[in-house]
C-alpha cells in the first residue's frame, strides 16, 4: 500500500493556489452597431436591399404624410376650400369632402328620417358580434342564438320596415353605403360557413347522390367568376320569371354571394377534413360514436382549427368582394364613394384621390381587425400543441 496522505506544503504542480487575475470580459456581440451589421448589412446583397428599401420609404412616406395630413384640408363647405389658394398652393387630401359626404357613405340614400333604424341595426350587430366572438363571454350559446336566429329577423324588420308596427317600408333600392357592405358581408359569412361544412361533408360522403350534388355545385360555382353569378342573378333572372315573382335586387345579390362563398368555403373545410388521420375516425368508432357525434366531437373541432387561417382568408376576401355588388347597381360602401367623387360641388383635382384614400383606410382597418382576431383565436386553440 502506498501512503495516500500528502504533505500540505507539497502542492500538486498543476493546481493553482491563487485565483487568476481578473481580466475585462471580451467584447460581447451587441450594441446598436452590431445589430445594424447583422440585421441590415450582413452581406453586400442584403445591404443593397436595405438601401433600396430605405430609399423607397424616403420617396413615398413623406409625400404621403404630407398629402394625408400636413397639406390636407379638414374644414370647408364647398370645393373652394380644396382648390389651390395662396395659403395652400398645393392642397392635399380634401377631408372636408369626406366630412360632408360621410353620412352618405354610412347610410347611402336611406331616408333621413329613418336612419335611426340603421343605427340600431349597427348597435345590435356590434353587440351580437362581440358576444359571439368574445371567447370568455357569459352564456355564449344564448349569444349564438341571438346572432343566428334573433338578429336576422330583427334586422330585416328594422331595416326594410313593417308598416303594421309603425315602421314605414324602406325599399332596398334605398339602402346603401356601409349598411349594404355589412349586410352583404355578414350574410355571406354567416351562410357560407355552415353551408360550406355541409358541402364539404357531402363531397366526402359515400352516398352517391349527395356526393354528386356537392361536387357538381362546388365545381360549377367555382368555375364561374363572382361577377357572372351576380350578373346572372340580377339581369337574367328577371327575364325568366314574371315581374311579380322576381325577387328583390339586393336579395338576388345576397343569394349570389352566399352561393359563391359557400362553394369556396366547402373546399377550405374539405382540406381540413382531409388532414384528420383515419385513426381518429376509427378511434371514434371504437368508442361507439355515431357519424354526427364523430364529426361534432372528434373531427370538426380538429379540422376547423387547422383551417382557421384559410377561413379567415376567405372571409377577408369575401368582405372585399362585396364591392362587386356595385356592378348590379347596388350602392355599397365603395360605390357611395364613387358617386360622391363626381359631385360637382366638390369637384377638385384631389377629390377622387381623397375618396379612394378613405376607402383604402376603411378596408384596411376592417380587414386588419379580422386578421388580428383570427390570430388570437389560433394562438388560443393551439395551446395544446405547445409544450
Amino acid at each position, binding site marked *: 500500500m502506498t501512503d495516500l496522505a500528502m504533505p500540505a506544503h507539497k502542492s500538486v504542480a498543476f493546481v493553482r493556489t491563487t485565483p487568476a487575475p481578473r481580466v475585462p470580459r471580451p467584447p460581447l456581440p451587441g450594441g446598436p452597431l452590431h445589430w445594424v451589421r447583422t440585421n441590415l448589412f450582413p452581406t453586400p446583397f442584403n445591404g443593397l436591399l436595405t438601401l433600396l428599401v430605405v430609399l423607397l420609404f424616403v420617396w413615398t412616406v413623406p409625400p404621403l404624410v404630407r398629402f394625408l395630413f400636413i397639406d390636407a384640408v379638414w374644414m370647408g363647405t364647398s370645393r373652394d376650400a380644396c382648390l389651390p389658394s395662396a395659403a395652400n398652393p398645393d392642397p392635399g387630401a380634401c377631408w372636408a369632402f369626406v366630412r360632408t359626404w360621410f353620412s*352618405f357613405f354610412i347610410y347611402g340614400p*336611406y331616408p333621413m328620417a329613418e336612419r335611426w333604424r340603421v343605427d340600431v341595426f349597427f348597435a345590435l350587430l356590434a353587440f351580437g358580434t362581440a358576444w359571439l366572438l368574445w371567447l370568455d363571454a357569459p352564456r355564449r350559446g344564448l349569444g349564438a342564438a341571438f346572432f343566428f336566429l334573433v338578429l336576422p329577423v330583427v334586422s330585416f324588420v328594422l331595416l326594410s320596415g313593417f308598416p303594421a308596427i309603425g315602421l314605414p317600408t324602406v*325599399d332596398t*333600392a334605398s339602402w*346603401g353605403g356601409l349598411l349594404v357592405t355589412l349586410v352583404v358581408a355578414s350574410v355571406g359569412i354567416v351562410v357560407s360557413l355552415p353551408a360550406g361544412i355541409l358541402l364539404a361533408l357531402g363531397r366526402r360522403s359515400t352516398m352517391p347522390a349527395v356526393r354528386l350534388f356537392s361536387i357538381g355545385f362546388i365545381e360549377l360555382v367555382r368555375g364561374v367568376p363572382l361577377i357572372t353569378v351576380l350578373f346572372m342573378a340580377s339581369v337574367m333572372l*328577371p327575364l325568366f320569371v314574371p*315581374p311579380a315573382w*322576381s325577387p328583390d335586387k339586393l336579395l338576388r345579390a345576397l343569394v349570389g354571394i352566399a352561393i359563391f362563398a359557400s362553394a369556396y368555403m366547402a373546399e377550405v373545410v374539405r382540406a381540413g377534413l382531409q388532414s384528420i388521420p383515419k385513426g381518429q375516425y376509427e378511434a371514434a368508432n371504437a368508442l361507439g360514436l355515431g357519424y354526427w357525434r364523430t364529426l361534432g366531437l372528434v373531427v370538426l373541432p380538429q379540422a376547423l382549427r387547422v383551417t382557421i387561417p384559410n377561413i379567415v382568408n376567405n372571409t377577408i376576401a369575401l368582405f372585399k368582394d362585396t364591392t362587386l355588388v356595385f356592378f348590379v*347597381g347596388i350602392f355599397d360602401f365603395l360605390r357611395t364613394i364613387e358617386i360622391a367623387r363626381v359631385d360637382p360641388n366638390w369637384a377638385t383635382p384631389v377629390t377622387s384621390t381623397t375618396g379612394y384614400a378613405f376607402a383604402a383606410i376603411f378596408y384596411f382597418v376592417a380587414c386588419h381587425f379580422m386578421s388580428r382576431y383570427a390570430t388570437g383565436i389560433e394562438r388560443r386553440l393551439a395551446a395544446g400543441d405547445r409544450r
Partner: protein
Amino acid sequence: MKRVFVAILAACAALTTGAPASAATLDTVKARGSLNCGTNGQLPGFAMPDAQGVWTGFDVELCRAVAAAIFNDPSKVKFVALTAKDRFTALQAGDVDVLIRNTTWTLSRDTQLGLNATSTYYYDGQGFIVRKSLKLNSALELNDAAVCVQQGTTTELNLSDYFRANKMRLKSVTFATLDEALKAYDTGRCDAYTTDASQLYSVRLKLARPDEHVVLPEIISKEPFAAFVRHGDDQWFDIVRWVVFAMLNAEEFGITKANIDEQAKSDNPEIKRLLGTEGNFGEALGLTKDWVVRIVKLVGNYGEVFERTIGQNTPLKISRGQNALWTKGGLHYAPPVR
C-alpha cells in the same frame, strides 16, 4: 356583337314571359303605388344622390314629373341605378317602368331591343375643352392638336370621323378611363380634351384651374337623350312622351311653379287646354284633367327643371344652347295640346 346579344335576350324575354309587355304599365304602376324609374346614379346634374341621400338631377326630375302626373306626388318614385350594360335588359325585364338614363336615341336602340324612345328631352353632343391660352375660337383650328380621349368609346370614333371629314391631322392620346384622360389633359400632355358636352362642364371643375379652360362652341356629334319604354304599350308610351311635351309647352306659355294658380284662370285657349280647364286631354291619356297642373306645380316646367339641375345657378353652369325652346333659337318644339 353586344347588340345581337341584347336582341337575343329581348327575344327570350318576349318568348318566356310575355307578361311585362302585355300588362298595361299604367295599371301596374298604379297598383304598385310607385313608379320604378331606371336612371344613372352617377352622373352629376342628371342623376345621382346628394350628400343627404336625396336623388337629384335632370333625369331624376323627369321621373318625378311622370310620378306627379300619375299620383299627384313626385316622391312616389323608386330610383333604380343602372349601368350602361344592364339598362336595356332592366327595362325589357320589367325591373323598371321607364328608362330615363342619359340614353342616346339611335335607330338600332329604337328597333332591335324591343324598346321605344319616346322623345328627345335633352340634346347632347360631343364637344371640346381647351386651354384659354391657346386662343382657339373653333374646333376647326385643332389641326395637329393632341386630343385626350377615352379608349373604345363612340367618343373616340366621333373624334376621328370629325378630323377626317374636315381634313385635319389628329394626334389622339387614348386612355382607359375618363379620369386618366382628364389628368393627362390637366398636366399638359394634350391640347384638348373631348367628351359629351353635358359632361365637359362637370369635368372642367375637376381641373386644377378651371378658369383657364374654355369649352369650344362646336358640337361634333348628335346625342339626343330620350326616355325609353317597352314596345307594345302605347298608352304608357304616350304618357311618358307627353309629360315631357307638357313641360316644354308650359315653359313656352310662361307657366311656372310660382304662377300656375293664376295661369289656371287664364283666358288663353291654349293654356286652358294645357291646364285642363277646357277639354279632356289628360283623361285621354289615362291620367286626370289637371295632369299638367300637377307636373308644373310639383316639379316645374322644362326651363325651371333645367335651371335647377344643370343651369347657371348650379356648379355645372350648362347654357341652354340647343336645349332652348324653338322660339328662342333652340331645338325643343313640343306639339300642341289639342
